[in-house]
């Protein structure tokens, strides 16, 4: 039999060949317009002096001037690099101070997140059965709560004069049993003046810790559930104590998740903005003690109206984040 007719396919508006590309295109279109293009444009802008509103023709070529202006290296006496005066000089320069603040808050808020989340997750994983979901939900709640709303409440709680936190802390500190105050060394007996600038970064760090410790706990808990039970059974047969099981099984098995969670914390804390911004009412606190780099960048753009410099800050910060992420990869990444 000899085939005679060759069928023409019905016309469809979407052929099988092109459908996948059409289906994935929304992301790429949106990213090109609202992600890639502005990014490239900001590289360009960072080389100019520009207020962001006047026509593009008004842009003034600066070259790397904006970057040098941000880094503010002139006048630093590098021969005195090991003296306190040198670092005070560095701290007085906006970009470096903001970077220092970011790192300080990042570490003081970030490290305890993991140091507490890991044992907490292990404890919840092994000890809780029925109450587990409830406990977890409570710890997770801060993570999904509107930052602005809850941070404003924290502001009230940290008030020196009427603040609940002072009342609670001094209450514990002054608590006496037979004329002896057992907690007076660990807790304050007098109200703490939380409004002093030295306290501001601590408050920010506490709020950040409070928001994310539950998130990290949940991450570690999820990882714990994937550890095969027979590892522990084998260890118990060998007579390993719970502590040795933790050190020799749990921690090594958690390592990929520790890497992942620390990376998330690192990237998140380096772009810290909402909590310090709201806690300090957008000012960065007295003497900008809690102004993070992202806040500094926005201040340069919105208050100073200097979009060229703000873009330069963004890219300097980006390089810094990239550097730290790379270092994190070198140090913590599990080797296979």
């Amino acid at each position, binding site marked *: *039999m*000899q085939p*005679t*007719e*060759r069928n*023409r396919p019905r016309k469809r508006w979407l052929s099988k060949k092109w459908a996948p590309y059409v289906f994935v295109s929304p992301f790429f279109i949106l990213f090109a317009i609202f992600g890639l293009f502005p990014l490239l444009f900001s590289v360009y802008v960072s080389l100019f002096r520009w207020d962001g509103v006047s026509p593009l023709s008004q842009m003034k070529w600066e070259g790397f001037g904006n970057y040098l202006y941000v880094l503010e290296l002139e006048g630093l006496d590098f021969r005195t690099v090991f003296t306190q005066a040198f670092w005070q000089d560095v701290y007085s320069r906006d970009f470096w101070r903001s970077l220092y603040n970011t790192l300080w808050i990042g570490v003081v808020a970030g490290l305890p997140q993991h140091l507490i989340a890991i044992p907490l997750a292990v404890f919840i994983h092994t000890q809780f059965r029925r109450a587990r979901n409830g406990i977890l939900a409570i710890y997770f709640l801060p993570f999904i709560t509107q930052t602005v709303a809850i941070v404003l409440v924290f502001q009230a709680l940290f008030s020196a004069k009427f603040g609940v936190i002072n009342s609670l802390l001094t209450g514990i500190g002054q608590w006496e049993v037979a004329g002896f105050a057992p907690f007076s060394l660990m807790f304050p007996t007098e109200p703490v003046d939380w409004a002093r600038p030295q306290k501001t970064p601590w408050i920010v760090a506490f709020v950040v810790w409070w928001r994310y410790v539950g998130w990290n706990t949940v991450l570690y808990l999820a990882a714990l559930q994937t550890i095969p039970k027979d590892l522990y059974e084998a260890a118990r047969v060998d007579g390993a104590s719970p502590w040795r099981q933790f050190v020799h099984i749990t921690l090594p098995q958690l390592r990929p998740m520790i890497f992942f969670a620390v990376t998330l914390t690192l990237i998140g804390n380096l772009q810290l903005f909402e909590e310090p911004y709201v806690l300090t009412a957008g000012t960065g606190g007295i003497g900008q003690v809690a102004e993070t780099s992202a806040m500094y960048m926005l201040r340069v753009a919105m208050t100073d109206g200097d979009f060229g410099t703000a873009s330069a800050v963004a890219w300097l910060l980006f390089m810094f984040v990239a550097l730290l992420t790379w270092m994190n990869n070198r140090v913590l990444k599990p080797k296979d």
Partner: protein
Amino acid sequence: MTPLSLKKIGKSYDGRNYVIRDLNLEIRAGEFMVFVGPSGCGKTTLLRMIAGLEEISEGEVAFGDSVVNELDPGERGAAMVFQSYALYPHMTVAENLGFGLKMSGVAKAERERAVNDVAKVLQIDHMLSSKPKSLSGGQRQRVAIGRAIVRNPKVFLFDEPLSNLDAALRVQMRIELARLHKQLGTTMIYVTHDQVEAMTLGQRIAVFNRGRIEQVGTPLELYERPENRFVAQFIGSPKMNVLAASGNEAGRLKIHSAGTIPVPIAQPASSAIAAIGIRPEDVVLHEAGTPDTLAASVTMIEHLGDATVLYLEIDGADQPVTAKLHGSNKQYSPGDTVGLACVDGKMHCFNAEGAAIR
């Protein structure tokens, strides 16, 4: 009833390596054709190319006298029953059956009538409003078949449809499929890796190996006259014993160091014999030392009830020889030495390339 014609079919995903190359096959109108072969042999790929689910890299597929290469799966007039049934879990049985008609733009009343008719034929009319989840494996299978029938296709395509069923149900469904084919008379193509399924269902069988068809024929043709070693060993269970033959001298073949036997076929073809094949059911055991037999010793015995399978070691061969004996005129035990021979006229011969010689 529609014949199918596959001409010079080739399939390649990257343009260099071919999964199927230069394949030709004519499937007759109303025929039940089975594609059988080990996994990865290209049989399912070919079926999917016929269905339109895989692009045809080279060659032409024609249904009747129309080439369907460019047509969408839904337009070819083929219906497919999948290994996993692939019923839509969110639709009722009735919706599952009618979905194809709906998408082809068939009016609602007509759709319902078609669905009801098919449901009655397959005896699934009482579960039309249930979801697939609540059905048993056999019932799902029936719905999957019903979904294919309802569209009144020119060709039925089955992709290992019984492999998810348990053994008893599989036998029952096999019988039902055979009856269905008789009833509808439609061309059917059935893919399986199970040679028993192939032998019982197929009017003709195409044996696939490495993207090529090794042989096409009726079940008995494949069993009795395999064209090469691959087909010979693929069809039949337990599989055919193949023994290397050497020293084709004075009309006798030397089989390893187990002895010699007379050349079973006439000259001059016999000079090319490199191996002989004996199906386990054609093995005959004599007293050890009987002339024209091979020295062998029993290593293991399996009693199947109706038959006994013996595993024998013959001198110099690294593979054991399997023998399937019916009736129990003699009891063997491990360690017994015997003389191994083949039923007259049942021995297969192959040349060095593996092709059968007759």
